[in-house]
């Protein structure tokens, strides 16, 4: 199970990173979101994978690690704020520059800047 979990995290991260290397803004934002999923999964697993427990004190002795959960919870919300900011920035860039390239360059001057 641990192996499967690790592979899944790695695949999600790789897919996200691949998208972040693209040249247009929207795939980059999608990649960023995917990468933050992978990061959250990674962080979450730092307390070990506990099935059938919970972090509610109810007299049971089988608890999951609450600390990574608290960290990831805020990370999810902050990740949302970051995605939102990035995508709005992308929209703004398109509105101001007239294209959606990550470098804000126009299609015609792409060649000369290479």
């Amino acid at each position, binding site marked *: 199970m641990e192996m499967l979990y690790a592979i899944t995290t790695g695949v999600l991260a790789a897919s996200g990173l691949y998208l972040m290397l693209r040249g247009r803004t929207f795939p980059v934002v999608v990649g960023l979101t995917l990468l933050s999923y992978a990061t959250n999964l990674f962080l979450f697993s730092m307390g070990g994978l506990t099935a059938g427990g919970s*972090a509610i004190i109810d007299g049971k002795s089988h608890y999951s690690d609450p600390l990574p959960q608290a960290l990831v919870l805020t990370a999810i919300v902050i990740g949302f704020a970051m995605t939102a900011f990035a995508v709005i920035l992308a929209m703004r860039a398109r509105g101001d520059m007239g294209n959606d390239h990550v470098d804000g360059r126009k299609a015609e001057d792409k060649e000369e800047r290479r």
Partner: protein
Amino acid sequence: MTLLWIPLLPLLGVLVPALTGSRGRLLCTLATACLPAVALALTLSYLPAIEAGNIPRAGLEWVPQIGLDLAFRLDGLSLLFNLLILGIGLLIILYAHYYLDASENYAKFYAYLILFMASMVGIAMADNLLVLWMFWELTSLSSFLLIGFWSHRSEARKGARMAMTVTGAGGLALLAGLLLLGDIVGSLDMQVVLDSGATILADSRYPIMLVLVLLGAFAKSAQFPFHFWLPHAMAAPTPVSAYLHSATMVKAGIFLMARLHPAIAGSELWSAIVTVVGIVTMVYAAWFALIKADLKGILAFSTVSHLGLITVLLGIGSPMAVLAALFHILNHATFKAALFMCSGIIDHEAGTRDLARLGRLAKAMPITCIVMSITGAAMAGFPLLNGFISKEMFFTETLDSQAFGGLSLVLPVLATIGGVLSVAYSIRLVHAVFFAEPRHAPPKAPHEPPHLMRAPSELLATLCILVGLFPAVMATWLLAPAVAAVLLEPLDFHLAIWHGFNLPLAMSVVATLAGLTTYLLHRKIRQFVRDFPPRDASRIFEGVVQTIGDRAERITEWFDNASLQRFMTLLLGASLIAGAVGLARMDALTGAKGNQPVDGVLLVGALLLIFTGIGTAITHRHRLISLLMLSVVGLLVSLTFARFSAPDLALTQLSVEVVTMILLMLALFFLPQKTPRESTPARALRDLLLCMGLGGVIAGLNYTVLTRDTESISQFFLDNSVPGGGGHNVVNVILVDFRGFDTLGEITVLAIAGLAIFKLLNRLRLFMPHSDSEGRIWAPDRYPMILTTISQTVLPLALLVSVFIFLRGHNQPGGGFIAGLITAVGLLLVYMARGVAWTQQRLDFPYQPVAILGVGVAALTGFGSWLFGAPFLTSSFGHFHIPLIGDIELATAMLFDLGVYLAVVGATLMILANLGKVTTPHRPAKEDHDQGSVEQGLHRTAAPSDGKETV
């Protein structure tokens, strides 16, 4: 402890001009002069004690761990320099009062000048190697400000920069040298260093240390080959030149050599380096002084030349040579300050410093002429003036020197050549300005300056004569303690004008006669020199600076070609290497914990995650499909959290997922629906390999951690959650109580992101397509009936659920974050179903204040605990009995959670509702009056914003 006031008073004096600058110029000048004058009087009050052989010292402990004490001493050498620094400084203050234009910022000028004065006093009195170095650097900084005072002039900026670079680089070498010296001796205390000369000379690190210290001294004192900054520093106002280049800045290097003389001199290496550099500088600079045409240029090079002379004497290092060096320091400061002031007067009154445009000024400026003739003659070393005596002593010492071994005649010969050139340029300076026929008329009709402007130079000229006539009376009281401080023992000497007919006198006579001849021939010499291309060290310097700048720029451009893809590739490549190296020994990192068994559901879920994750990347050209894939990933992540015992996370992830998808869908509406194919196959392959590598690193890292035994600090939270935080949901208690400060930071970030997005959307105009990428018109039914009905039914339910989730959050899965997101989702559903316009009418309030209020409530809850004398964000809780509802547990953390709730609702809606407004005619920008009434669903192109502020 009064001793400490001597360096402290000038330092405090930096504030005086700033405080009195607005009260008029005269008051400012007088007030500025006060503190240095007191410091001077204090210095002199120690004279009897010093003459008696004492060395007053005082200090405060500063950083004892590294042996750094704020310690000062006042021995004979410090006294001599303090006298020059403060005495000539006072004269310069008076002179600058007349020199600077009324329109100039004299207060700033005085402040810089006093800062410089204070740092020089600090060097002279430092009793600790590091303190010495700090004041040394302070002189570099303050001289930078002074030289660049006329910052509107390019040459002033360049000159200041050059002086700063050269002396600053020298300062770094000096720091290394001084630290090495302190290491050799084992103490940074000056007295200990001075007393351990023998240890230092015997140490194997001595040569390195000596070269480093001398680099600093030579750079500061403009010795060859670092001399080139000094003539360029002439771009400074003349009072600055007169001060920096006669008595202070350039003498700092000389001072250092004299100060450390007992400790580091006395080896053959010392006398070889110092003597050779000094004599080369002396002759080389004297030659340039002869061929310059600018008054201050001549003086600048003559200064360099005379500094070379003093360096030679220090290099020879015999007791009489040290005496001669100190005497010449005094004499040079006297006549050179006066000469600079005179050249400033001429510049001020005639409007030029160009020798070609000056001449026959003797009639118009008779007194200036007399003053300059006297001081010029002193510089040339004519008899009955102070310069003569020290020059005779110099000649005597060069004859006695053994520095060149078999070639012992070289030094006196070169010294005589230097003397010849010195006579020639001194004569030229006076003759060309006052007696020769000018080639062109000066820009202004010259006349005598105000009397008080002349007074400082008159005083100095008088001193030149008095010291020249009565050297024993005038100078012995000052020189005897200074020599004793350098030699560490008193020296019995007698200064006299006449030593009989001897070889030094013959050298003087030769120098005078040959100098006169050289002056008569100097036009021819200058003609001859003009045939050679100027090979200025400053050009080389500028060239090197330029080259370094260009190279740096090229390297930066390679990294920073303004391409995000380039940055990302470099960043990811670097992290791949770092990660792969770390994971190379994965076997050793992996722990002993075995794999838990996999069940079918888990396997299906993981495969689905992998499939949709890769699918998101593969389908990225079809953005909508890619987005749908992403939403599946998000959903599965949420299920993963639920599977592994994190209900809070599952709830949060689910609600965030909803909000994120709405946001991205909305954004995609305004962006191209498809991504063009741009990457070459090679590039795509490279990216693919890079990402696969990184994915492997992350997976490997994750696996190694998961197989290790976890020793978590979480037991503390589990144990203390109920007794300490009053809640059973440990995750929530951590968020609002244990780590409440982190959460406060996080909701602040959220609110700031919301505000930034609000600002970014401001006045944004985007093309709104009326159909999708396939050309299909969007559904004509903008507000479907079913959705409208459901949304209105769901909203109260959603609000109720969020209240429930919020209230139970402390004990059951839930809390402010999740409740906030549920509320936001409910409201967003209404926005979507009914449109922004309809919702806006009914929910007419801005969300920014809600978000800010949330952060405020959370912060105030934290501050509230101060009222009870507890630290920030201490929570308290208790059980309350409320009629009808029953027992309830309330914690102040709940109030904090309310802040979180408000911040999340506010920020989320601020982002989405504002983005939604972009789709309506009621855009968040100003209304579309300028565009006329444009109906929805039509093409709308970006219109330039007209610059009006929106509310």
